[in-house]
């Protein structure tokens, strides 16, 4: 029994050490998206892990779809299943912080099956932090400046119209 367990353990360790497996073994992952797109040859068709905010749109097209994630250094497309995309509730824009996701998947620098697109095909997609609304409280100083400028413009316009009348233009 002891020998059987040792052999089983060795087999499991060897399998998980194999490159490119879908069991989450990540080889030589880039520090960020910018590093990934700056050295596409190095990471091409390797399993990598990236984190970032979902931005813009969740583009579902049938049973699969696209999101784009931004980690502050750059943005990259992620191709995922509809089931994975349905986990995402928020995509970032001016008034929304998008969900922060961890994506583990295969990076392609120019996938011929996707028209040469550069993207990550997600094996695993996990929401690590849910997004939500971003508050933009009104800056009262801007309101005050606007009021002053409107008054000044009205006064100047009156002066201009008066001058044109005097000059009979």
């Amino acid at each position, binding site marked *: 029994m002891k020998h059987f367990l040792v052999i089983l353990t060795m087999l499991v360790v060897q399998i998980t050490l194999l490159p490119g497996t879908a069991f989450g073994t990540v080889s030589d992952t880039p520090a960020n998206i910018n590093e990934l*797109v*700056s*050295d*596409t*040859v190095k990471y091409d068709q390797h399993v990598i892990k990236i984190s970032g*905010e979902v*931005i*813009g*749109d*969740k*583009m*579902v*097209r049938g049973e699969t*779809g*696209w999101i*784009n994630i*931004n980690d502050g250094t*750059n*943005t*990259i*497309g992620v*191709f995922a299943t509809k089931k994975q995309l349905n986990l995402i509730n928020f995509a*970032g*824009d*001016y*008034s929304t912080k998008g969900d922060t996701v961890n994506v583990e998947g295969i990076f392609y*620098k*120019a*996938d*011929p*099956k*996707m*028209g*040469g*697109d*550069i*993207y990550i095909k997600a094996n695993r997609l996990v929401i690590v932090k849910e997004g939500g609304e*971003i508050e*933009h409280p*009104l*800056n009262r100083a*801007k*309101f005050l*400046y*606007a009021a*002053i*400028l*409107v008054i*000044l*413009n009205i006064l*100047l*316009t009156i*002066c*201009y119209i008066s*001058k*044109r009348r005097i*000059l009979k*233009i």
Partner: protein
Amino acid sequence: MKYSANLLNMAHYLGKIILLFSALMLIPLITSVFFLEWNTVFDFLNSMGILGIVGTILLLYSPQSIGQLSWKLGMVIVALSWLTAMMLGALPYYFSGFWLSYLDCTFDVMSGLTTTGLSLVQDMEHIPYGINMWRFILTWLGGQGMIVLALVFLMRGLPGAFRIYVGEGKDERLLPNVTHTAKAIWYISVVYMLIGTLSLGITGLLIGQGPVRAFMHGMWISMSAWSTGGFAPQVQSINYYHSLAYETVTMIFFIIGSLNFNLHWAIWTGNRKEIYKNLEAVTFFTTSTILVTVALWELSKQGVYSSTLALFRRGYYTMLSAHTTTGFMTTYAQQFITEWGPLAMVAIFLAMLFGGSASSTAGGFKAVRIGLAFKAVLHDVKQLLAPERAIVVDRFHMGKDIKVEDRFTRPALTIIFLYFILWSITSLVTSANGFSLPEAMFEAASVTGNVGLSAGVTSAALPPVVKIMYILAMYLGRLEFLSFFVLAGYILSKLRRR
């Protein structure tokens, strides 16, 4: 006194143009109201307020124009208008807080107005709809011509209007009256914009965008494509959409946008043969075919894109985007330097420098000048080979058959030479500030030709001297030098008199 009359006329037209510019800010202001972006609403209100004060003070100083404008003064007004628009148009950007400095803001305004498309904005994925609207209004305005718009609304029946019109790098006369020509240009542009918005909006819906974003992106991308501007609402440019359909529609519009307005008018009014006979259309087709073939051959040989579809979507699309000086990207900036190979890089340099058509929204040397340069060389060679007493007559077709003469070929060669000098200086300044020569030459070609593709050089971290050089290069490239030289000469002459 002539001196006072010139100054009064400058103040009068500048004042009107500034007020028109201020009125245009109503569009992004209303956009921000719709999307409840209240801080952005006040950013635009404050900007309009400042422009209103400046414009009205100038008009108070000079409430009416005096006499007829000279050619020189027309060009000075154009050159000053663009610089003023750059300085004042940057206010909403500065107030928004999405740019790191006022210099960066002016860079983006000039990039928009000149339809270059490079940007120094921070956190583009989170900028307000109103600010994005202003970016695309600037690029659409710049493509058609700010002065062209002013002629439609502010300068009806103005003696000397044509002189201002020509100062913006335009010389097409669709109709006998320049104001009617200006209206025709805007009519063509609005029609294409509406068709583009509908096409791209529907495409956006089909690829999975929500209806509001599909419509807004459709409108913005259509304005940017038609203007061959290259601004996009997301950092990844057109690659954001991951869609062949989206790329194809944008390609159609940016190719159309790079064609001469005269050609558009000829086709719209039933003269369809013009597209086959027109020197510019033929030259553009020839140079783009040669350069695209060279680039695709190299990319295929290097194995950068291993399928025909990939070559079309990345290689062909990017080469056409460069040649029409649009600047939409379906690759990352870094990939040009790390993957494209030397021959493909030479092809893309030349494509960016050659550019689109004269009197279109495109930049670069312009196809008509390339065509005329080629005709001039051919003519000289024929003359050399002909019997001594023979006179060789060559013709080219631009609306009608025209004899190849020095008065056409010489200005064309002069402008090509000036563009080349500008590109060289811009490359050297970039290289001297820490960038490799290929990167510097690529970025300089993009800036000089008002293209907008980037090898990764343009960023907020760029030294100020390079940013200023790029602003100058974009400005000179768009106005095709003459207006700026006249302005510089005018200022120098006033300084000398003192």
